[in-house]
C-alpha cells in the first residue's frame, strides 16, 4: 500500500515537472525576455551541476592525483638535489676569489685521506701550480681539517687535524679564553681544548671558534661545542669538544693562506 502511494507520488511529481517544463517551453518560445531569462538560469544551473559533478569526479580521482603529485615531488627533489650540487660547486669555486681579510683561498678536493692512524694525513688535488703554499690551513664551513705540509706541482700533502702532532689555537665562545685544540685520538669528531685559564667561565654547549692567534687559520671559524671539563694541575681547564666536522665525510675543502705569513715569520726570527 505504501509502495503504491510512493509510486503514485513519484508519478505525480514527474507529471508536475513535465507540465512545468511544457509551460516554460511555451513561455520561452513566445517571449524573448523569458527566453533569455530561462537560458541564463539554465546556464547557471548547468554550471553549478557541472561544478558539483567536477568536484565529485575530482574527489574520486584523488588517488591518481596523489600518484602524480608523488611522481612530481620525486622529480622536484631530484632537481633540488642537482641545484644544491650546482650551488655547492659555485660556492667552492667562488671561494677561489673569496678572500677573508689577509687570507687567500683555493678550493680543493680531497684525493686521499687516512683516518685510522694516530698521524693521519690528507692529499689534495691542488699544488703550487694552483697557488697552494706550504704552511697553509685547510678548512671547511664546519671547521678546521688540517695543515698543508708539502706541495707538489698538482697536489698537496697535509697533516690532518686527526693527528697527534697538530694543535690549533681556539677560543671558547665569542669572547672567551683561548687554548690549544687537539684531536682526542679516539673519536672522529672528538677534540680537547687545553690550557683554558680557570677564570674563564663557560657552559656546556658553548661554541668553540678559531682564535685567529695562529697564522694558519682565519679567526671565528666555528669548530665545535664544549662538553665536560676537568681541571689540570689546578691551573687550567681541559674541555672535551665535539667537532662539527665529520672527518669521514670530507670531500671539498678550502686551502687558506695568510698573505702576511712570511712577513710575520720574519719578525719572529
Amino acid at each position: 500500500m505504501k509502495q503504491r502511494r510512493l509510486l503514485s507520488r513519484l508519478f505525480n511529481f514527474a507529471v508536475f515537472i513535465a507540465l512545468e517544463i511544457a509551460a516554460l517551453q511555451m513561455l520561452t518560445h513566445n517571449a524573448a525576455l523569458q527566453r533569455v531569462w530561462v537560458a541564463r538560469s539554465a546556464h547557471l544551473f548547468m554550471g553549478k551541476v557541472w561544478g558539483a559533478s567536477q568536484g565529485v569526479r575530482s574527489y574520486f580521482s584523488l588517488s591518481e592525483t596523489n600518484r602524480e603529485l608523488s611522481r612530481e615531488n620525486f622529480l622536484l627533489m631530484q632537481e633540488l638535489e642537482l641545484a644544491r650540487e650546482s650551488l655547492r660547486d659555485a660556492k667552492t669555486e667562488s671561494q677561489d676569489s673569496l678572500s677573508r681579510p689577509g687570507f687567500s683561498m683555493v678550493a680543493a678536493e680531497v684525493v686521499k685521506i687516512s683516518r685510522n692512524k694516530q698521524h693521519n694525513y690528507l692529499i689534495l688535488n691542488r699544488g703550487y701550480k694552483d697557488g697552494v703554499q706550504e704552511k697553509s690551513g685547510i678548512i671547511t664551513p664546519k671547521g678546521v681539517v688540517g695543515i698543508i705540509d708539502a706541495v707538489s706541482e698538482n697536489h698537496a700533502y697535509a697533516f690532518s687535524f686527526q693527528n697527534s702532532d697538530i694543535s690549533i689555537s681556539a677560543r671558547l665562545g665569542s669572547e672567551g679564553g683561548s687554548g690549544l685544540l687537539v684531536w682526542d685520538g679516539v673519536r672522529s669528531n672528538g677534540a680537547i681544548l687545553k690550557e683554558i685559564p680557570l677564570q674563564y667561565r663557560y657552559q656546556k654547549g658553548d661554541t668553540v671558534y678559531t682564535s685567529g692567534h695562529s697564522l694558519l687559520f682565519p679567526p671565528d671559524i666555528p669548530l665545535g661545542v664544549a662538553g665536560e671539563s676537568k681541571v689540570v694541575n689546578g691551573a687550567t681547564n681541559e674541555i672535551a669538544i665535539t667537532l662539527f666536522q665529520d672527518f669521514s665525510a670530507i670531500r671539498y675543502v678550502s686551502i687558506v693562506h695568510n698573505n702576511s705569513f712570511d712577513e710575520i715569520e720574519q719578525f719572529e726570527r
Partner: protein
Amino acid sequence: MRKKTFWIAYIFLLLVQLIISNYFRFTPYIMLSILPVMVLCISTRLDTLWTMLIAFATGMTVDLLSEGLLGLNALALVPVAFFRNPIIQLIFGKEIFARKEDFTLRSSGFAQVGLALLLAQALFLVLYIWADGAGMRPFSFNLYRFLASLGAGFLLSLLTLNVLVTDSRE
C-alpha cells in the same frame, strides 16, 4: 449533481478570469487572478494528477485567450494544484481526506479558509511575478506587485469562493 454545478461555476469563473485579464489592467502593480482559488476548490476526491492537468488546461486557456504570455498562467497554476493537498492537509487536517469532504466557509471557518486562500494565492503570485519579471525587474517592484496583488486577489478570491461553494457544494 453538485459536482456538475461546480464545473459549470468553474467554467463561468474561467470566463470571468478572461474578462479580468483582458479588461481589468489598471496598474502594473496589481495582477488580479481568481485561478488559484478555483484550483483550490476543486474537490479533494479528485486526485492530484487530474487536478494538475485541469490546472494546466485552465492556465493555458487563460494564456491563449488573453493578452498575456503563453504558458505564464499554466506555469504558475500547476504548482498550486500540486501543492493543493498539502495545503489543505496543513490547514484543515487529514480528516477532510478521510471523510472525503470538501472545505467550506461554514464548516471550516473564515480563518482557516482565508489562510488556505492566501497560501494558494501567494504561491501562484510568487511564480507568476517571478516568471513575468524574468529577472529584469527590481526586487522592490516585484515585492510591491506581490503584496498589492495578494491583497486584491484575496478579496476577489473570497467572492469567488462564495460563488463556487454556495453554488456547488452546500
